[in-house]
């Protein structure tokens, strides 16, 4: 035990590790709340798919100026926003449902990304970093600032659109009858989705960046029936998974994205078993029924 404590202290004194830790903690504060709404709007898989949509934009950024944080962020942001807003508008303005609308835009976007990355011969090592998250050493100051800035924007905007967003989920017709804020809130929400995916992409890699968003949210679903508490639980789950996963992946020299996502997956398993809202144990052993 003492040895472990020593090991952790040693890791924390390492500056690169501290930066990674900061990045993950910040991400855990901003991404899970967005994930909660994604889940409640039955858009979890859209979040997953969106993370692929960022690929062509980031690839263009990479082609223009190599592995530059700013260029890849701008490229990814542009691609993600374009697709999110286009798909959102198509879904609102036509009969096509949101998931189908997203599927079309994403597939086209992903295909474009594959063409761009392949045609320009990104080397295998870079591609691995790009897709699965670099090892803990790789979060530089630029990335950290980017993630912190994104988190600040995300949290403030989410607070601003919170009421219409909740109402648009529960009772969209009622919202339309009292306010026109539903459309704005929905589009702003899609922007937040992209912004957090970009952060996730910098901290955890393209494919697994979405893990910090979706998994803590689904974990929280097993612990409460109140939206406010659910967001809080999701953030705590994100923090636990983030810190544990980062530490484990640093110790085993694995990609951070994989470590954090696996840690979150363990929390999810535990929640399925022990969660009081629909968890397996509570269903198998509900206790004696109450007085009527």
């Amino acid at each position, binding site marked *: 035990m003492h040895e472990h404590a020593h090991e952790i202290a040693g890791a924390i004194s390492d500056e690169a590790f501290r930066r990674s830790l900061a990045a993950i903690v910040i991400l855990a504060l901003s991404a899970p709340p967005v994930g909660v709404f994604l889940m409640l709007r039955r858009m979890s898989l859209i979040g997953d798919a969106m993370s692929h949509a960022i690929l062509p934009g980031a690839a263009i950024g990479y082609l223009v100026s190599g592995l530059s944080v700013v260029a890849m962020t701008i490229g990814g942001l542009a691609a993600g926003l374009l697709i999110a807003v286009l798909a959102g508008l198509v879904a609102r303005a036509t009969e096509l449902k949101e998931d189908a609308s997203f599927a079309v835009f994403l597939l086209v976007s992903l295909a474009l990304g594959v063409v761009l990355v392949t045609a320009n011969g990104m080397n295998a090592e870079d591609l691995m970093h790009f897709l699965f998250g670099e090892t803990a050493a790789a979060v530089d100051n630029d990335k950290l600032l980017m993630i912190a800035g994104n988190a600040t924007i995300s949290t403030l905007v989410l607070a601003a659109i919170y*009421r219409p967003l*909740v109402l648009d989920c529960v009772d969209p*017709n009622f919202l339309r*009858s*009292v306010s026109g*804020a539903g459309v704005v809130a929905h589009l702003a929400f899609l922007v937040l989705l992209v912004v957090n995916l970009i952060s996730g992409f910098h901290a955890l890699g393209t494919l697994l960046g979405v893990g910090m968003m979706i998994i803590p949210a689904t974990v929280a679903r097993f612990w409460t*029936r109140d939206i406010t508490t659910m967001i809080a639980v999701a953030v705590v789950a994100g923090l636990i998974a983030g810190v544990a996963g980062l530490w484990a992946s640093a110790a085993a020299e694995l990609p951070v994205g994989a470590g954090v996502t696996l840690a979150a997956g363990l929390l999810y398993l535990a929640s399925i078993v022990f969660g009081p809202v629909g968890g397996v144990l509570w269903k198998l052993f509900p206790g004696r029924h109450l007085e009527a």
Partner: protein
Amino acid sequence: MTGELQFRDVTIGYDRHPAVHHLNGVIAAGSLLAVVGPNGAGKSTLFKGIAGALPLLSGSIDRGGALARDIAYLPQVAEIDRGFPIGVYDMVAMGLWKHTGLFGGIGATSRARIREAIAAVGLTGFEQRAIATLSGGQMQRVLFARLLLQDARTILLDEPFNAIDSKTAADLLALVRRWHGEKRTVLAALHDIDVVREHFPQTLLLAREPVAWGQTADVLTPQNLLKARQMCEAFDEEAAPCTAPLAG
């Protein structure tokens, strides 16, 4: 004092197919009007149009100077996500949207009003319950509490008594009568003809176009009901563009 609704050649629908076709007429302020008709007659569509939740294909609705947002609207329960993690108190509090908007706080006065509304529908003690755990009747009571807070001159109720027990229906009907007593305009889409005959002085029998409109006893004749039932439910996919002249 508003509450009057005037329809000028109103057509509302989906994908150019009218679900409500060329509706003309006036609903006087303070009316208690049942909207009756078979499935697909356009009752919900009409309410969405009045509430501003669905754009009109043509024509106009004059809300007596009021905006669509000043009208309280009870959607069908089926269109509400009952699984969403939100409590009774918060759901009812949404009725104060006009006062609070996006950021406004809910002060002591508002909290008292929310408690009153919850008490008025008999749900005191249920404030913290998640809506997922409510029965159908309790959910409808929650929605009526929200309507109470909206304090609107015009109230639209889409199938308010569907699949709820007679005790709940009686309690909610008492609220409807109270609104009528306060000279509010109340429109309710209903299936139960007996409830309509007993509690609603006026009726609009709708089958995409009005079949009959007036005093309930005059409207709900066997002939009229038969005529409404014969309405074809399916949209004619080959329908030509409507040639009726547009009202000026």
